[in-house]
């Protein structure tokens, strides 16, 4: 199945998404333009995940806030609270308040854009406070563990909108920072006592990074495929031009836009002359090749970015032009016709020059035209061109 999908990709000409899919991305980096697009997509796509994550964080941190009262019950009843107890509780509650204050950032659309930049700060701030709070537990004479850091490492590798590389960097900052902070708060004795914790922490980074790698890889693949899907849905598979569905959609859109204005939409309909005869004498393979070359010529000749060239049937093509007039459109169609004739593709069994030619019918939209009426007028003009001897452009009145 995968090999067939790859065959399919190689048939799609000049599509950056297909190219990237074929080239692969083991290092989780696209070519620069796609990478930028992906990062933008990721930042927006993960907004829901960030919402879930912040709620999850609030719940988990809330459980620790409550467990403080239980674990510290012997100290809490003392007449005079030791200094460390104040620090501990302040630390716990400040982080809780910080998390709570992130909720509006995620819920208010106006502030949403800050949420991505805030994510690593929240996680790393949380992680370092875990170190300080637990060391304070130690100072108060309780047993404590720094395993909460592992949860923070898992959070860093959560699909929250950061790329894999950024997550890895953040994990590094988190782990190193935690060690430095530990030494600052608890003195030199911290490192030996933290040995086992460090070991598990690094293991956690390793396991989570592997998981995140797979996740990011799938997400990148999905990103490329989704773009490819859009492309495939609106392109003709043989020539890579727009297909009929896409042309019709655009033309209807434009006609709606210009209705009531003095701007006109132009519609050129092309038909390859005696294509059936060509196919019969030269075979389908050669016929396809001709269609591809004609399509290429039409596409190259339709330079303005808004204009769309499409293949709408076996040997039928269409070009739609935004904001044009009769003369301009006729000239464009004539240029395209000449361009194809100039390809000099041999068409044996034809009178005259024996090359592949096009007949064309053009129509410019009038005030009350809809897509179907415009198409039919162009079709009538094409019919006239065929009857007038082919290899020519006719315009509808």
């Amino acid at each position, binding site marked *: 199945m995968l090999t067939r999908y790859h065959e*399919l990709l190689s048939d799609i000409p000049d599509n950056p998404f297909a190219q990237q899919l074929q080239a692969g991305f083991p290092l989780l980096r696209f070519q620069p333009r796609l990478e930028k697009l992906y990062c933008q997509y990721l930042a927006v796509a993960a907004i829901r995940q960030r919402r879930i994550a912040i709620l999850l964080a609030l719940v988990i941190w809330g459980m620790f806030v409550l467990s403080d009262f239980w674990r510290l019950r012997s100290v809490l009843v003392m007449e005079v609270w030791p200094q460390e107890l104040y620090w501990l509780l302040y630390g716990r509650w400040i982080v809780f308040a910080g998390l709570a204050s992130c909720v509006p950032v995620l819920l208010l659309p106006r502030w949403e854009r800050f949420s991505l930049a805030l994510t690593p700060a929240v996680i790393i701030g949380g992680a370092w406070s875990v170190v300080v709070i637990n060391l304070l537990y130690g100072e108060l004479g309780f047993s404590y*563990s720094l395993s909460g850091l592992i949860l923070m490492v898992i959070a860093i590798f*959560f699909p929250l909108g950061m790329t894999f590389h950024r997550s890895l960097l953040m994990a590094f900052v988190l782990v190193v920072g935690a060690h430095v902070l530990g030494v600052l708060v608890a003195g030199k004795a911290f490192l030996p006592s933290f040995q*086992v914790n460090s070991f598990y922490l690094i293991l956690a980074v390793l396991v989570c990074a592997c998981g995140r790698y797979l996740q990011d890889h799938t997400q990148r693949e*999905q990103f490329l495929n989704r773009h490819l899907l859009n492309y*495939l849905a609106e392109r003709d598979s043989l020539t890579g031009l727009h*297909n009929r569905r896409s042309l019709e959609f655009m033309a209807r859109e434009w006609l709606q836009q210009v209705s009531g204005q003095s701007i006109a939409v132009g519609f050129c309909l092309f038909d390859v002359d005696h*294509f*059936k005869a060509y196919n019969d004498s030269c075979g389908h393979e050669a016929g396809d090749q001709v269609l591809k070359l004609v399509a290429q010529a039409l596409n190259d000749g339709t330079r303005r970015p808004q204009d769309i060239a499409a293949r709408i049937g076996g040997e039928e093509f269409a070009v739609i032009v935004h904001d044009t007039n009769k003369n301009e459109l006729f000239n464009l169609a004539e240029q395209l016709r000449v361009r194809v004739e100039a390809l000099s593709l041999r068409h044996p069994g034809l009178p005259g020059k024996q090359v592949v030619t096009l007949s064309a019918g053009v129509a410019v939209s009038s005030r009350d035209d809809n897509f179907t009426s415009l198409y039919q007028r162009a*079709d009538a003009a094409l019919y006239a061109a065929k009857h007038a001897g082919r290899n020519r452009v006719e315009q509808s009145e």
Partner: protein
Amino acid sequence: MEIVSRRQTHDDSAYARQKTQGFRRLRFEPKLEDEFREQQGYSNLGLLRISIVFGVALWLLFCVVDILIAPSDLLGLFMAVRAVVLVPLLLFAALLWRGMPLYLISPLTMLCIVVVGLGAAAVVGLGHSRDLSFPYEGLLLVSMAGFFLVGLRLAEAVLCAVMILLGFIAIELWAGVPRLQLLTNALFLLCGNLIGAVGGYMLEFKTREQFLTVRLNRELAEQDGLTGLSNRRSFDQHLSTLWQQAERDERGLSVLLCDVDHFKAFNDHYGHAAGDLALQRIAEVLQSTARRPLDMAARVGGEEFAVLLYDSEPADAQRHALQLVEQVRHLAISHAASSTRAVVTLSVGVASRLHDHPQENEQALLAQADRALYRAKEGGRDQVQRI
């Protein structure tokens, strides 16, 4: 007349339907679900091979850690537990390389995860029976591996995580760990598993979305936009696949090459829009002929269609072709410009692969059908000819 193609490729695809329906509960409709799991089975194999090497290496590393930090009188027990767990891991690894049925992969993966988890819990319990500060965080890593690294579905991974957590609590109770510490430790593991489960949900959701998109892309690339039948490229591919299969299994294979009579004249007389509609209706008839799984109906040219019938005797093919011609005539699409009949008609050329002295290759078969079609045209159209 509107020329919106009635057949919107997108709505007809099972993949597209599933996409719009959504799959929040991480489940497709039964047929797609089977397809999805089969594909996951294949693609997980590579992942599992890496994971198992990684897992065995980590397990051995823990043996080293044991030697460094375990109470010396318990070291023997520790090593015994580690060794017992290693046995299923190595057996599973052997199966992964020697090959095994796809349906065994996830149950065995789950088994390994749970065995490793319970083994780790046993070591922690033994450790805690002496020293309450013995580290237990490794357990969380086992569940994380279940969620992210071994290709289990979320439901399976959650089941493993729950079993490990329950096993841990049972062993800790046996080891006589104080309730408070047990509560704190269990709380920590629960939080970790919660995060893991949410992440696992996201991962599986993405994987499923990816599956649907790829399949949909493939369908789009293989279909003809106007009629929704297969296009020429997929017809060529399918023909050569079927040819090889027919050769191997000694089955019949027939090609019906169809051409709409006087279609050019129809188009010129009624316009392209009407022509498109006529093609769509004829395509529906063809599709209904090629109903069995290996059969295919394709649009191979402007007004040219082809039907592939696998495992069919020449007589069957002839019968199908006659039916086709009749059904198209009965569509009763009026055709004033036709010199044959007053309605749109079809000419069909039939060629079948012969068991005794088969054609040279699939192209020869196709050429035969083409010649037969030519005869049908010459013979007055609206008929079937065979060679």
